[in-house]
Each structure stands twice: as C-alpha cells, then as structure tokens.
C-alpha cells in the first residue's frame, strides 16, 4: 500500500530521519512511537506527501508520492495533523463537505453519491447536532471527531493521524480510539503517531519505533522490554487485564 525506501530527511545539515525502509500493507493498523523529537511527525508528513523526501522515496501504490497531484493524493490518503489551525470561524458542515473536494471537478456541485456519504458520516459519528456550529467553539473531543468524520467522508483507504488523543479527556479518547478501530475493521489502513501506548498498543497489528531519526523496529506488534527501554530510557512492564495487553512505564 505505502512504503518507504531509504527514506531520509534533513533540515539544512541537521538530519531528522535517516534511511528508513518499511512496507505498510492494506488494513494494517500501524503505531509509530518514539520519544519527543525522534522524527515521528516528520515521518508522517513525508508519508502524507506534505514534505518532500531528501533522499529515498515514499511510494504509494507503487508510485512515488511526489508524482501525484495534491488532488490525486487526497483521493487516496488523508492526513490529520497534530493541531488543527482554525483561526477563522468555519462551520462544521463545511468541514465535512470539504472531504468531497478531491472528487469534484472545478465549480461542480455535490453529486448524490457525495450527499450519501456525507449523511453516512454524520450518522456514524453522531454529528447531527453540531452541523451548524462554528468549529472554533467545539470542545477538543468534538473537533477531533469532526476531523475524523471528514476523513471518513473523504473515503480514502489510508488515514494518517498525528497524536489524535492530544488534549482529550479519557472518555473522548476512548471513543475516538473506538472510531479508529471501526474504520480499520472496514478495511482502511490506519497509521497513528501516538504516545498513548495504553490506548494503541493492543490495537495495532504493526509497530514502528523511532529513535533519533533512525528506525529501531518495524514489524509485527510485540512487547519488547529492551526496545521500549532503548526508545524511552525507562523500563516498561506488561500486564493483561480485561483481556487486553497493557504496557506502562515502571522503574
């Protein structure tokens, strides 16, 4: 689906990422983790085609992301950045409709198919009450929900999320994780950069560990005390509770 080949990125002479190679398959749920400043967000932006690789390449469906137009790319993947930047009032309705933009020719109106999927998104994410609200006035949890719904409406096979649980209360976080899980079950590929291992570790089928811009691990998700210690410089423990594998830092 999407792969990195010798992927490197530098700002000036300072390397951010060096020589990453991995292949993400369809319907994978990939957790990218690492300490602050390890290069996780940069990696996600490279995958999304928002940044151009210094050396190496990101290939989507066998073609370099640089060879896609923005519109073509938006029909194949959706990138949700860490912080949204709503500096002006925008209605939730318009945010959701924006998800159909990649499929519309210039000045074209909404098709029945567009409407259908927007309605489905509103129902699935229970946004009926928020449609006429200004997105700036929403809570963090509502905002994330709206953005995720807009990715659903964009109807793309690949969703890339940068720290989606930032600033969310435990309840909102739990619901958002459930929505991601549902999107994954429907066949979508999900790539998440996150620190909340307790939320994502058991969900992911693959994981990618970054340290100082190099990849320490990519593959099937598995608990490894050595890897976690290497990445975070603290010891981690694992317990199983309520049928779920939980890991946490413990010195």
């Amino acid at each position, binding site marked *: 689906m999407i792969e990195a080949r010798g992927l490197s990125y530098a700002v000036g002479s300072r390397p951010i990422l060096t020589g990453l190679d991995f292949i993400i398959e369809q319907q994978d749920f990939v957790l990218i983790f690492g300490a602050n400043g390890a290069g996780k967000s940069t990696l996600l932006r490279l995958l999304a085609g*928002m940044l151009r690789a210094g050396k190496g390449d990101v290939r989507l469906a066998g073609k370099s992301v640089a060879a896609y137009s923005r519109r073509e790319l938006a029909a194949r993947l959706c*990138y*949700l950045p860490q912080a*949204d*930047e709503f500096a*002006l009032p925008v209605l939730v309705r*318009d945010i959701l409709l924006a998800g159909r933009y990649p499929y519309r020719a210039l000045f074209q109106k909404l098709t029945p198919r567009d409407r259908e999927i927007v309605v489905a998104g509103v129902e699935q994410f229970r946004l009926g009450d928020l449609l006429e609200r200004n997105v700036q006035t929403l809570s963090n949890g509502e905002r994330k929900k709206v953005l995720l719904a807009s990715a659903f409406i964009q109807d793309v096979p690949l969703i890339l999320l940068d720290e989606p649980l930032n600033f969310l209360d435990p309840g909102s976080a739990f619901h958002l994780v459930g929505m991601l899980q549902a999107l994954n079950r429907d066949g979508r590929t999900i790539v998440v950069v996150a620190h909340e291992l307790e939320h994502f570790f058991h969900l992911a089928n693959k994981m990618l560990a970054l340290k100082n811009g190099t990849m320490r691990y990519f593959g099937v998700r598995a608990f490894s005390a050595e890897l976690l210690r290497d990445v975070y410089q603290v010891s981690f423990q694992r317990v199983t509770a309520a049928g779920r594998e939980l890991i946490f830092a413990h010195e």
Partner: protein
Amino acid sequence: MNKKLFLLAGLVLLLLAITPFIGVVAIDLGGLLQESPGSFIFWQLRLPRALLGFAAGGILALSGLVCQNLFKNSLATPDLLGISSGAAAGTVVALKFNIQLTILGIGGLYVSSFLGALSAILFIFLVAKWIRNSSLYTLLMSGVAINFFYSSIIVVFQYVFDFSDTFSLLRWLMGGIAVAGYGEVLFLFVLLALFLLLVFLFRAEFLLVSAGDDFAASRGLNVAAFRKYSFLGLAVFVGAVVSICGPIGFVALVVPHVSRAWGASRYRETVGFTFLLGGGLLVLADLLSRLLAPPVEIPVGIVTSLMGAPFFLALLVAQLKKTD
C-alpha cells in the same frame, strides 16, 4: 436566505437613492428631468459619486475578506500587506512622470496602480522564495515590510513635488470619491461583479484555505498556487479602486468582521453582507465627508478611519468579553 441580508440590501438601495439629494445645494425632485443646475448636480456629480462609492467600498470589503481567508488572520488586509500602498506608489510615480500606460484599452492611472500593487505582491513571494519559507508568517511580515517601503516612497515623492502638486497629491492620498464620470462607475461595477463571481465560484477553495493549510492540502487543494492566483486577483481589484479613489483605509478591515458575525459564518451570507456593507459604508462615509464641514470636504479616507477606529475597538472589546 437570510432576512437580514435582504433588509441590508434594501437599506443600501435606499441610501443610494437618498444620498444624491443631500448636500449644500438642495435638489428639487420635480426639476430632476429638466435642465437645471440642480439636475446637473444630481445626475452628473452626486449620483455617479454615490455609485462609485458603493462599488469601491464593495470591492475593498471583499478584498479584505479574501485577505483574511488567505492568511487565516483577521487583521490581514490589502493595506497591512502593502498592496494598497504599492498601488498608491504606482499611481504617484505615474502622476509625477506623467506616465500613461494602456492595457486592453484600459488606461489612465489604472495600469500603473495595478503594476504597483503587483510589485508589492511579487516582492512578498520573492522574499518567501529567497528564504525558502512560504509560511503565512513570512508572507505577512514581508507584506508589512513592503508596506513601509512604499509608504516611504510616497513621502519622498511628496517631498520632491512642487508645492501645488504636493497638495493635490496629499489630497488624493487621503482617499476620496472624486467627482467621476460614468466611465469609472461602469469600470468599478464590472470589476465588483467579476469579484463577486470569482468569490462565489471558488467558495470551496476559499473555505478550504480558511480552515488551514494542512487541512486544505490534505483535502486536495494546491494551496500555494491558489494563494498566488488569489493575490494576482487582489492586485487587479485593489489597484483599480486605489487608482480612482486613492487608498481608503479601514473598510477592508472592519467590514468582514461584522459580516462574519451577521452571516453566522455561512460563506454565501458572509460574502453578501461584506459587499453590501462595504459599499453602503463608503457611500455613507462619503456623504458625511460632504456634510461635516461644508463647503469643505473632509477626505473620505479620513472619515472611514475616524469611524472605523473606535468601531473596531468596540468590536474587539465585545469579542474579548464574549470569550472571557
């Protein structure tokens, strides 16, 4: 559609109908269709002036709205970014050296004004390219820099003009709806219609950029290209208004704020409020400029600033109170 929008449209039409009757010389309704000094003043001076004010105000307000969307900054205006002062500098240079450029049959000061505005925009993008950073902050800051640069150019020209020229130049720089023929009125109305059409046709794109660069790009918009073409359009529209009316401040800043609130952030309604309110406001300001100290006319740019500054402050305070 919004009832308030129709109400405003009605009020603006009423204003346009009443304004030409008001002034030092009283107009007799019955004498309008006869040849008299009154009917000349009505048809040849005051009516075109009111119409010109409406078109100019509408264009300025829309250009403010577009700037704010492009920069996602509610303080961004063609004035702040140096587009207006670029246009003004272009006009001043053309006046001083008596340059008359003509493109596509459109001549006079307009072409120089447009080129001035365009040069300000080119400068902004060249700086971004040069330091390889096209973030909004960079663009905004280079706009502020070019604004200072062109403002100084204008002052230099004022200084080297001889005295009588300096006065007329100063008068023009304060902004005014000069006594215009219907040619200018038609020109600005065509541009206003074109501007409205573009703002409606590209509503999806404007909504995307106003929600943020990352958001717009990951929904498939080539943000950098869209921003470039939008600025080119701004140079055309702002250049036209400045070449005819001089730089008129505050309309582009204040009107979109009010319109967003009245239009409840709905795009179409916000656009509707913006051009109606902008047009109406400038007609009203021009009327005040004629009435405040007759027979002297206070430059309309000064009236808009005098009206706009306290109004804007009140707006800010109201907003701050709301968020507290």
